[in-house]
């Protein structure tokens, strides 16, 4: 019965394949293995989501140790949703990675790269699937450590300082999380999340639980890169190899958002986090600042990768704004944007990687005339950009719509205006690129030289998905709404 073991296969397959990649030694074989594994992971994630939507939450006891003593993998609509996003991005980025990585890394590092990539994938999937708080920390460290390596591999030597900066900040974040988990263990004597949720109300008044929440929230927020804890992100994204930037931008911060949501809503419960502690008063202002300030900063970037990185911080603001509202509509807005932003930003970074491959630079002035020399990559960037702005028929529009609806439900006019104002700032930074790419003539002697198909197809899959989920929202919004209902305490 393979179906019953899907939760564990989701983790074990990439985990076992990672050292195997290193053992294979040669770049091409390692890539093939990683590719096969990432597609298998996507299949498993799809299977899990289908199972959850059909039968409700799945619980899997590791090694048959019954929870709450053993480690439990617990998959409800939210886990399955995040798993699907992570696995899908992994499966799309890997085919792309071969040419991109061959161009950016020396041959002897290729096998190591795929090993680190699979470990990172394992870690992110593990965080999303586990129902055990300490196990979550372990997977978080696996994904973080491997992502430091991945970022440090960047061609530019500044990648090393960027990775180091991320290492310091990420370690602080992870340490805060483990302190929080430790305090919870101290107060309740359990590490199983469902069990924690049941036991916390009895000790909710204690300082220990309050401190645990504080540590967990700050730690997760550091990994999310919510303003003002976003300092590590722009450099890390700007100097990492193209494929890594696309993968991490679309998955790592999203999984961190998941951690925060899981703890705030499932473990502590909305009644404690939002009614008693009024955390929204803390989250919403920072989200608003993130949207306005980081979108503005993005306008003034001349490195397009950095520009998109700042845009990511702003987009995280949208997700956190929705989640910070704490209502069912707000959470589904945050979650659906988590899904949509993964697709659009992944697609944008992939398109930028295509450009980097052929032009050798992602500085704004290097993009002149791309509309003619690389029409497909440039157009992919335009569509992705439109989605970031939130133009109708792209998934960004759906996110904005639900988010504005959520703010209006609360009568929060100012917030609705902030969301829309953020879109206008996005117009400004996206259109700077569009003007250079389409209205400035290409440098003399530049001929048409489109990126290879192995990179264009993945790019267009994500961009196409951004458009598809702007028209048919039954999967993206449907699951997000189910997850939001579960989180706010309604029936699944």
């Amino acid at each position, binding site marked *: 019965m393979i179906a019953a073991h899907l939760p564990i296969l989701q983790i074990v397959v990439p985990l076992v394949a990672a050292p195997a990649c290193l053992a294979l030694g040669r770049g091409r074989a390692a890539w093939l293995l990683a590719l096969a594994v990432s597609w298998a992971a996507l299949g498993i994630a799809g299977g899990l989501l289908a199972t959850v939507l059909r039968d409700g939450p799945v619980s899997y006891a590791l090694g048959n140790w019954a929870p709450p003593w053993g480690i439990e993998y617990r998959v409800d609509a939210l886990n399955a949703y995040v798993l699907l996003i992570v696995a899908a991005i992994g499966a799309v980025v890997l085919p792309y990675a071969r040419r991109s990585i061959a161009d950016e890394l020396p041959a002897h590092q290729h096998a190591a790269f795929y090993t680190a990539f699979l470990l990172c994938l394992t870690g992110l999937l593990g965080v999303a699937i586990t129902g055990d708080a300490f196990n979550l920390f372990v997977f978080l460290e696996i994904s973080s450590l491997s992502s430091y390596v991945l970022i440090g591999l960047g061609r530019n030597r500044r990648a090393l300082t960027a990775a180091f900066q991320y290492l310091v900040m990420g370690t602080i974040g992870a340490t805060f999380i483990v302190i929080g988990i430790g305090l919870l263990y101290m107060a309740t004597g359990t590490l199983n999340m469902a069990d924690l949720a049941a036991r916390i109300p009895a000790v909710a008044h204690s300082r220990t639980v309050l401190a645990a929440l504080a540590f967990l929230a700050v730690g997760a927020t550091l990994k999310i890169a919510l303003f003002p804890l976003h300092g590590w992100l722009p450099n890390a994204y700007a100097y990492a190899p193209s494929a890594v930037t696309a993968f991490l931008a679309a998955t790592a911060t999203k999984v961190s958002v998941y951690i925060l949501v899981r703890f705030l809503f499932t473990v502590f419960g909305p009644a404690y986090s939002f009614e008693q502690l009024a955390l929204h008063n803390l989250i919403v202002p920072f989200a608003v600042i993130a949207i306005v300030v980081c979108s503005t900063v993005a306008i003034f970037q001349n490195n397009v990768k950095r520009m998109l990185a700042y845009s990511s911080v702003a987009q995280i603001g949208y997700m956190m704004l929705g989640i910070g509202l704490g209502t069912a509509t707000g959470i589904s807005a945050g979650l659906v944007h988590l899904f949509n932003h993964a697709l659009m930003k992944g697609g944008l970074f992939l398109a930028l990687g295509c450009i980097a491959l052929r032009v050798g630079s992602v500085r704004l002035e290097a993009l002149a005339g791309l509309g003619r020399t690389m029409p497909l990559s440039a157009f992919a960037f335009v569509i992705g950009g439109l989605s970031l702005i939130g133009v109708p028929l792209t998934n960004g529009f759906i996110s904005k719509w639900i988010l*504005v609806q959520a703010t209006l439900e609360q009568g929060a006019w100012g917030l609705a205006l902030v969301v829309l104002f953020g879109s206008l700032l996005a117009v400004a930074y996206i259109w700077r690129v569009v003007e250079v790419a389409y209205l400035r003539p290409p440098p003399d002697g530049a001929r048409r030289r489109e990126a290879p198909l192995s990179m264009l197809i993945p790019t267009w899959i994500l961009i196409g998905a951004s458009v598809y989920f702007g028209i048919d929202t039954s999967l993206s919004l449907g699951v997000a709404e189910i997850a939001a209902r579960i989180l706010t305490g309604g029936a699944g």
Partner: protein
Amino acid sequence: MSAQTLIWLSLLIPGLAAVGIALTGRWPNVREAVTLTAAVLLFACVAALVPDVVAGGRPDVTLIEMLPGLPMRFVVEPLGMLFALIASGLWIINSLYSIGYMRSNAEAHQTRFYVCFAIALASTMGVAFAGNMMTLFVFYEALTLSTYPLVTHKGNEEAKRAGRLYLGILLSTSIGLQLLAIVWTWAVAGTLDFTAGGILSGRVSGPVAGVLLLLYAYGIGKAALMPLHRWLPAAMVAPTPVSALLHAVAVVKAGVFTVVKVVVYIFGFDLIRETGAGDWLAAIAAATLLIASLVAMTKDNLKARLAYSTVSQLAYVVLGAALATPAAVLGAGMHIAMHAMGKITLFFCAGAIYTAAHKTEISEMAGLGRVMPLTFAAFLIGALSIIGLPPMGGTWSKWYLMLGAVEADRLVMVVVLMISSLLNIAYLVPVAARAFFLPAPRPAALGAAAAPAAPDSGGIREAPLFCLIPLCLSAAGCIVLFFYADAIYDLLRPIVQP
């Protein structure tokens, strides 16, 4: 063919045409044949829907549910029917004209031009047939984006600046204000369907209705209400066929069409009148109408003058909607048609003058009427229609607008409309009069080199036939509309007398 199939075809034909044009870009004649065939087929499909709609049918199709409870839906009602008819009909004429203009002026990137044009038409059809406010918004944005490459067609600094202004104003108003208004409406009313009598009545109080109407009126930047009109004169940097069909007909009419739709089907006349929400809108429209006319008089560049004239004429439609009486709204609807026919004629003439004589400034056009008599005759006819003198179509729309102002007991507006008509005469008629009656400048003053090409030395020299025929057709259209205005009246009457 069933009405549903016809709606599908109306949306698909221009879209498919865009693909066809892109594929046949290497063979200009085939490419233009694709455009023309698509335009004729589209008009045939739209026209075939008319009998059903006149008979009271409201055919609809639903594409897909984009958001829970919010499908992408198309419904053909009289106002949209009229708008689609105008846009698709004028696309045929404009395509002929484009061929003449683009080839004579040897414009670059012609394939991109025709592709974007076809996409813009597809978006226009979507706006015209949209069955709810969200569908309308989707195509409204598509129209903005598909016309951006047309505005920046020349690719120089001026075009770039114009493009920024164009996109900046249209996107920021639509995302910042209109989208907010739409989601607000959705939150209050729980539906966005265009419903006779409105969906907001009884759900919002007076001040809220006023604020909402403000968000809509300024959110629909394409209606070019002052002070958010600047994108329209800026867009005149585009090739003249774009100014003619898109920035005198499709894009700007999509704007005022949306305003009328919002007033008729979202607010409903009663709500607008009872809450007084329309009062300030009428005041802004009246101000725009007069100021734009005054500005137009100061412009020497012909296309700039026509652009400000468009701003002013669009305000007529908004004024009609804001008065919210049956006659006023009828007048507003008719004015969409009448102004389209008149203004496209004027732009065709401006383009023909540029093509044949390379003149853009009105002061340079003295005596040109004797060289290009047909062009300037057509210009005069178009101008008279805009002014509203019989026997031109514009007479009727202004008539109903004034009637509406009387009906609403707003005599001030009657005065405003009259003054504006006088201003129209002052800025439009002199263009033709100078061309016909003033002597041409002496070639000697320009230097000997210009002598062989002097206007009065070679007799008649009109623009190429592909430019000339369309402008004669549309000028004739202005006259025809005078005699067949009752058809438009009958088509539109159900929206004011449900």
